[in-house]
């Protein structure tokens, strides 16, 4: 037994000595600043992670002072992962993350203010100011936008053509409803497929709010769901179900259910995320296109729901200057993430969008031409960026709850009553978060 114990002691000593020697090796190389970069998987895992590594390798070989190590970070439980890292003091130096992360971590004092970068880039006009504004909270620029995830209405070109519907003529909600009515009256197809149960239902809610120039709150951060423009949205939902323009089961559909209906050729219009995924269904993709952005009765400006995604620098970084240098380089030199990595969103930089890759198929070309010029940050309107309480309203899907509550009544909804009830709940959530 004594021999065994002695063995353990010797092993421990040996391990300690090895660790100490590793430490001294590291200190001799301290001239090179090492950065850890968490990059979420923004495209197919097999292609994106490799492209992300290649971009970092290019940065590493472009200079001698900084070495970046990319850690490809999957989306599942991203929130808990970041939160745990931040609260336990093990946050990375730099990270790409969800659009809701900068507000949370910025307010916790965990992100660096990157206003200097914005000032430096302001005049080149390569990135739309709307995108920068999304991450500016009270004068602090907690993130730099780098890609934009856009929502759209796909439609069947063959069906519209047969029915004589001119997609360019759809400029208002009424035009849209008329087109759906024509589909209902003249075909066996489901006029409109949209998710009612998950985040996509919430995004549909944001889309409708943006297109009617209204949000869940007003400029003074008061609950605003019972405003006239929001009541109009409720009435629009009511029309959809009352006139049989969506299926009765819509309230229970997740994103994949609504997609399936369109991809298998059963629906004429689909509300969904823009992405090249549709191209895999060539039979439908060949006869699909994206509807131009249309607006509601309370707005005369078309706006399209989009989620602008950020890159951030954590204040826990030991080498903040190196981290900022990397972010600046990476933001301008990451075209490969799309061309090789097949990232599913679109870049925010016009210079990257000019790459021929972004005109190589109809999805990207139409997104660039028809949607990006009208992109606005989903959920925040009429404010430019996230506000106190938004995390709760967004996480608990209040925009989806409104849609669900109206369509659950099968066309007989008391829209004002529903809006008023939800407005009260939004009001208390806002109050709690103040």
């Amino acid at each position, binding site marked *: 037994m004594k021999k065994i114990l002695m063995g353990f002691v010797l092993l421990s000593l040996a391990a300690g000595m090895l660790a100490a020697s590793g430490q001294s090796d590291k200190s001799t190389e301290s001239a090179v600043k090492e950065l850890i970069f968490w990059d979420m998987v923004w495209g197919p895992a097999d292609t994106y992670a490799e492209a992300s590594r290649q971009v970092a390798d290019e940065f590493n070989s472009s200079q001698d002072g900084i070495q970046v190590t990319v850690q490809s970070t999957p989306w599942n439980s991203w929130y808990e992962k970041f939160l745990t890292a931040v609260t336990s003091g093990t946050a990375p130096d730099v990270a790409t993350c969800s659009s809701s992360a900068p507000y949370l971590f910025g307010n916790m004092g965990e992100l660096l203010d990157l206003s200097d970068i914005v000032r430096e880039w302001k005049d080149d006009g390569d990135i739309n100011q709307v995108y920068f504004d999304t991450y500016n909270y009270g004068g602090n620029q907690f993130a730099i936008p780098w890609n934009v995830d856009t929502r759209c209405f796909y439609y069947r070109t063959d069906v519209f053509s047969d029915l004589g519907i001119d997609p360019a003529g759809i400029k208002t909600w009424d035009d849209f409803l008329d087109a759906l009515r024509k589909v209902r009256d003249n075909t066996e197809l489901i006029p409109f497929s949209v998710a009612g149960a998950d985040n996509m239902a919430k995004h549909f809610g944001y889309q409708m709010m943006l297109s009617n120039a209204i949000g869940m709150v007003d400029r003074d951060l008061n609950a605003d769901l019972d405003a006239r423009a929001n009541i109009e949205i409720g009435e629009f939902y009511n029309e959809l179900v009352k006139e049989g323009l969506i299926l009765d*089961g819509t*309230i229970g559909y997740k994103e994949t259910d609504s997609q399936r209906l369109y991809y298998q050729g059963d629906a004429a219009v689909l509300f969904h995320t823009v992405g090249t995924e549709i191209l895999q269904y060539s039979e439908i993709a060949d006869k699909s296109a994206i509807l131009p952005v249309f607006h509601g009765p309370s707005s005369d400006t078309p706006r399209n729901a989009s989620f602008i995604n950020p890159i951030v620098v954590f204040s826990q970084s030991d080498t903040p200057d190196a981290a900022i240098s990397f972010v600046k380089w990476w933001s301008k030199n990451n075209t490969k993430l799309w061309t090789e990595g097949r990232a599913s969103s679109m870049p925010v930089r016009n210079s990257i969008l000019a790459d021929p890759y972004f005109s190589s198929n109809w999805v990207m070309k139409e997104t660039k031409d028809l949607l990006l010029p009208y992109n606005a940050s989903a959920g925040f309107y009429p404010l430019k960026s996230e506000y106190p309480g938004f995390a709760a309203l967004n996480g608990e899907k209040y925009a*989806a*709850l409104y849609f669900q509550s109206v369509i659950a009544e099968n066309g007989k909804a008391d829209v004002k009553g529903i809006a008023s009830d939800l407005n009260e709940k939004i009001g208390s959530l806002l109050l709690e978060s103040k």
Partner: protein
Amino acid sequence: MLSSQKLLYSRKIGYLFLFLPFSILAVIRLYPMLRGILLSFTDFSLLSPKDVNFIGFQNFKKALTGDKEFYSVIYFSVLYTFSVVLLSYVFGLFLALLLNTDIKLKGLFRVLILLPWVIPPAVAATNWLWLLNDQNGLINLALLRLGIIDSPILFFASKEMARFTAIMFGTWKSMPFMMIVLLSGLQTIPSHLYESAVIDGAGVLRQFFRITLPLLRNVSIVCISLMFIWTFNDFEQIYLLTEGGPINATYVLPIYSYFLAFFRLKMGYSSAISVIALFFLSIVSTINVRQQRDNF
């Protein structure tokens, strides 16, 4: 016989071996629980994690007296838990009784019935969502083709149907555990008791109520208590199936607590909700332990 010195030495070794697993358990089980309890007495918010104040029982007072949502969540949590436990017990017992008879391919049936228990919840929920879909789902298509229904059943389209579907899914997932535990209980009942009962003229029902059920009592208490605790704490099954919808109709306490912590960023209040659940489940556990102690 070991000498007293050797006995002492072997005990020391025993404690040494116990020390490591106990330390691991303390770190991964005990510490988070104690920290959670501690947080429940604070106003800890993720927006200001460095500014934490002790606020006594305020979170508990708010939950029990001022939070309407909490009571609506408790209502469905209790309904869901009782329904799933009751139904899975009834169906589990029925299947256990069937499999305890001399039927052919008994082993195969046991494996098949156990499948729902071993399938990961994410896979099970995805498959059920597809099976229950009103447009493409196998169940609706089969019922329509057989002429049993005229129009598809909308399993998730109303609050009531979504709740019913969540309970059915929970029952399907839990029933195999009940079945296997009850089957093991049935196999410990001596066959001569049934033989004597038959000689005395007792029918099948009488044998069930006078012999089977009383002798399954201990096993039943254990599996019902465990299932109660697991079901009450169930987050993923419901979340994967309905995400708490439609219109929040299938919110259960763990989902509510999760939303409070990560969306409303109120870690302190969320911890208080979890502590209330812990208190409630501790009562169930105490009853279980007492019953077992009284019976053995």
